[in-house]
């Protein structure tokens, strides 16, 4: 496997990389958002006069002095309505105003002078209180059943099982806390708009700005090559983006709006709260005969996103009988949105905990139970997996981690004042290959420029572009310049659904092949070409023919052709004959203090079956990063909603806990690296989300092994272990 340094590493560590907020066009003014301090109600009035008189203030926009934005028409994972277009408040922390001033500080200080009067209503802010009134999602499928011949219901199958368990598992709201807060810089030149905005795909803000500003996509240029983490929160285009663009248009000068850390918690969406009641039924030998999961997700009144949290129970283990249901609890809280491995991460916590509980009930090793129910085909569709080596993940992991040393009796292994437990769980995430277009330009300086409107959120995607193009073109990686995050380049795959490399990788290779053909054709046909009329070939960055060879850059310079440009499109995979999924196995050791109950993760191993690994260096970081986020999900993260007010009780970086370095043990990552040649010639399936799935379940299982306590409500904090 190749291990290549990030092509953008030097500019990032030296600070030369310009993120959205680092742009300062001439004449820039600064926007600062005003947010609501009630969760539901009507705004009666806003006194903006003191703010308007404050030093440096240029404009104060509110629902009573709005910037006109057209309704959103296209689906997005952000809100349904554009900001400031009416006086309704749907959640605490909603954008209700924008102050624009000559400096950021002036805008911020003026915003603090605005007072707002509300007719406040009691918000629906308790998920628990809303559970009895949970409803099937509008437009979704409420239930899915797969039953063996002669079986009339899932409960009948459960009742007929030798052994069964039923438990309810709950997960709190979580938020992404990416390192880079959201920012938008908008400037107009005539009727053309240039935008720098943090985004997981620059064509997404183009779509939203087109509809909300009432202009053509051709008038909008979004440029955002560097993204400081996303995890789903930069997929949707949020309120500040159209607002900032509209303010810049109204004021005739560029405007920049950067969200504060606190604003990111509410102006941007969060991962929904979920509850899953899982029943597993098995034969005495561990063969699953019934899997039932009734899943409920919170959903914001401000948008339609929820997690189909139970659905993973249909895809992971084989069972003759399967049942899943989906319901939502609508709440007056900020938008619910996608967050790393939406549905599957929470879904796996319940399923993987339940598998451990079933193993206990069966008196089986939990790893043996998983081996027993590994399935070569999708449990619902029956389609064979394109490439699945999960059993090898389990076996390699167990050997490498020392799983055989796990005590089957919980609470029996101690080290000083620490109770020690081992846990494991399956990692998995769905895979696909979307359509992607990539442009390759071979230049007369011997460099290749590879462009597409993809995004590198810190994942290493731009380095993947360089590696794959360099390989096809036969030139060193450092002679390839990847260009990502520019809406003027061809429509490559956005960074979402772990689908960047699986879609863009084949497209880069196609485009690079096409570029080779183009330069060969040029060499054979151009009137000034020394190869004219020869049988021309291309190898190792050179054009060859008639016994001569010349690097492509020299040839182009000789011919006076500055560059050869080609674009190629790799089509979407139809997925008709196979099912596609990545797999892996987590193993961890957790220690719990016998006095004060703190759970601490001491060791981690993740064995990964995700197809071809293009760059093991960045891939390892992706997997380790997912494990870190999974440890946070397991032990720390909990975005608390005040039931009376709908306010987030801990919406600051000090109070919303994510792991720090000392919380993270050495993380061992092993890639099996079997190409998935059914998905593409490249064989890469994608790894962005895989390793957070199963991580919380592995921790919960290790905590149980250490202490004998089964915590079914995330996060597993010390108060639950005292």
């Amino acid at each position: 496997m190749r291990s290549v340094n990030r092509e953008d590493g030097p500019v990032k560590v030296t600070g030369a990389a310009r993120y959205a907020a680092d742009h300062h066009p001439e004449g820039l003014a600064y926007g600062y958002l005003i947010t609501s301090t009630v969760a539901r109600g009507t705004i009666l009035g806003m006194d903006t006069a003191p703010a308007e008189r404050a030093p440096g203030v240029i404009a104060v926009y509110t629902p009573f002095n709005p910037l006109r934005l057209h309704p959103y028409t296209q689906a997005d994972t952000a809100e349904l309505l554009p900001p400031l277009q009416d006086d309704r408040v749907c959640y605490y922390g909603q954008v209700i105003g924008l102050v624009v001033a000559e400096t950021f500080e002036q805008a911020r200080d003026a915003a603090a002078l605005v007072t707002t009067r509300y007719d406040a209503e009691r918000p629906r802010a308790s998920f628990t209180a809303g559970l009895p009134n949970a409803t099937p999602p509008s437009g979704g499928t409420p239930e899915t059943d797969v039953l063996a011949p002669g079986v009339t219901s899932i409960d009948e199958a459960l009742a007929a099982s030798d052994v069964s368990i039923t438990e309810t598992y709950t997960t709190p709201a979580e938020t992404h806390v990416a390192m880079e807060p959201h920012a938008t810089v908008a400037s107009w030149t005539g009727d053309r708009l240039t935008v720098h905005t943090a985004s997981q795909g620059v064509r997404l803000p183009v779509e939203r700005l087109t509809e909300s500003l009432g202009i053509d996509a051709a008038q909008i240029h979004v440029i955002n090559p560097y993204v400081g983490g996303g995890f789903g929160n930069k997929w949707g285009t949020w309120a500040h983006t159209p607002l900032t663009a509209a303010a810049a248009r109204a004021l005739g000068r560029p405007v920049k709006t950067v969200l504060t850390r606190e604003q990111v918690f509410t102006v941007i969406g969060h991962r929904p709260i979920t509850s899953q009641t899982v029943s597993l039924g098995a034969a005495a030998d561990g063969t699953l005969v019934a899997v039932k999961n009734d899943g409920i997700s919170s959903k914001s009144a401000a948008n339609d996103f929820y997690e189909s949290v139970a659905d993973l129970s249909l895809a992971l283990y084989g069972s003759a009988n399967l049942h899943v249901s989906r319901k939502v609890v609508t709440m007056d809280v900020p938008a619910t949105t996608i967050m790393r491995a939406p549905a599957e991460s929470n879904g796996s916590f319940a399923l993987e905990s339940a598998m451990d509980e079933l193993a206990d009930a069966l008196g089986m090793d939990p790893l043996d139970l998983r081996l027993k129910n590994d399935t070569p085909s999708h449990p619902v569709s029956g389609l064979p997996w394109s490439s699945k080596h999960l059993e090898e993940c389990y076996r390699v992991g167990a050997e490498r981690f020392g799983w055989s040393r796990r005590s089957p009796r919980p609470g029996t292994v101690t080290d000083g004042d620490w109770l020690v437990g081992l846990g494991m769980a399956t990692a998995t995430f769905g895979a696909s290959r979307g359509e992607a277009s990539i442009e390759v330009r071979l230049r007369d300086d011997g460099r290749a420029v590879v462009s597409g409107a993809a995004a590198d959120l810190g994942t290493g995607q731009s380095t993947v572009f360089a590696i794959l193009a360099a390989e096809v073109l036969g030139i060193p990686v450092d002679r390839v310049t990847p260009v990502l995050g520019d809406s003027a380049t061809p429509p490559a795959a956005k960074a979402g659904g772990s689908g960047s490399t699986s879609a863009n990788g084949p497209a880069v290779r196609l485009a690079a092949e096409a570029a080779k053909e183009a330069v060969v054709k040029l060499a054979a046909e151009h009137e000034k070409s020394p190869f004219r009329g020869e049988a021309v070939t291309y190898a190792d960055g050179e054009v060859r023919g008639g016994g001569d060879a010349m690097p492509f850059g020299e040839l182009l310079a000789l011919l006076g052709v500055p560059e050869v440009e080609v674009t190629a499109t790799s089509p979407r995979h139809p997925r008709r004959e196979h099912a596609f999924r990545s797999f892996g196995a987590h193993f961890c050791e957790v220690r719990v203090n016998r006095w004060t109950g703190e759970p601490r993760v001491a060791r981690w191993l993740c064995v990964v079956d995700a197809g071809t690994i293009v760059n093991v260096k960045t891939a390892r970081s992706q997997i380790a990063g997912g494990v870190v986020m999974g440890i946070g999900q397991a032990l720390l993260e909990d975005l608390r909603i005040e039931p009376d007010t709908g306010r987030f009780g801990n919406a600051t970086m000090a109070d919303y806990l994510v792991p720090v370095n000392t919380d993270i043990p050495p993380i061992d990552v092993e890639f099996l690296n079997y190409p998935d040649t059914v998905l593409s010639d490249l064989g890469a399936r994608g790894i962005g989300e895989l390793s957070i799935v199963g991580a919380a379940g592995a921790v919960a299982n290790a905590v149980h092994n250490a202490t004998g306590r089964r915590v079914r409500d995330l996060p597993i904090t010390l108060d639950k272990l005292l």
Partner: protein
Amino acid sequence: MRAFDFAVPHDIDDALGLARDESAFLAGGTTLVDLMKLEVVSPEQVIDINRLPLHGIRPEPDGLRVGALERMEDVARHPAVAGPYPVIAQALLASASPQLRNMASIGGNLLQRTRCGYFRDVATPCNKRSPGTGCPAQHGDNRGHAILGTSASCAATHPSDLAVALVALEASVRLRGADGERTMPLADFYLPPGDTPHVENRLRPGELITEVIVPPLPWAGRSRYVKVRDRQSYEFALASAAVAVDLHDGEVRDARVAVGGVGTVPWRLPAVEDALRAGRSHEEAAALAAAGARPLAGNAFKVTLVQRAILRALTELAGPR
């Protein structure tokens, strides 16, 4: 942040002369600047005291003397602290991050404001920030709040780890104002909230902490600061215990015990100390820790946790008993 005047005096009398009712002294700035940005405090004048001669870490016959402008990290690493008073060094090193400890002063640490989320969010009521507006923590988000020394007006914890260790060691603070100098035990310096949670201590307007004095305690070498929190670093305590024991032949002859993360002020536990002196078991002694506790909906676990923190410290210092 509101506009303010800024002054940089070079000696103490100048600093005290400049101070007005609406002044704030700036040392490390790690609390003050945050709170000014949040508009929790909006002083009309900020007086930078970093050039004042309030330095020095000196063991003297009447105890260890630490200048108020000494930085947390320097104090924690000083041999006159780490050897004779491990509980102080451990409390400091369990606080904040190295970057913050390199900035934050000892005087400022003792005066840092609570981390209560309502206090720090000006969109919400708070009796400590805006007297008479109410205390949403009583029925709101209160997992991190105090169980000891609370009132219906306020349940905010005192956030300093250092103060817990110093109260256990019966340290004093030296104060200097325009009217002169005075010295006061740190335990008397802090005020429980009662009906006036905005009055947190006995510091008078314009008065400075100039020095911390830790009296000699020969057996403080056997001391420990146990800090319990959800993550292993960079978080305030859910519960903490500063414990020192005088151990003879495995028996605890004397002890000092104070706890943090659970009280509205650093909380000395004389009843626990008495029980240990009387030869009661660790468990029996620790069980007295939460006497009089008034837990709220989200923090009842602290009643148990604070006892366990003490037990853990005692076990580490004196073995199981």
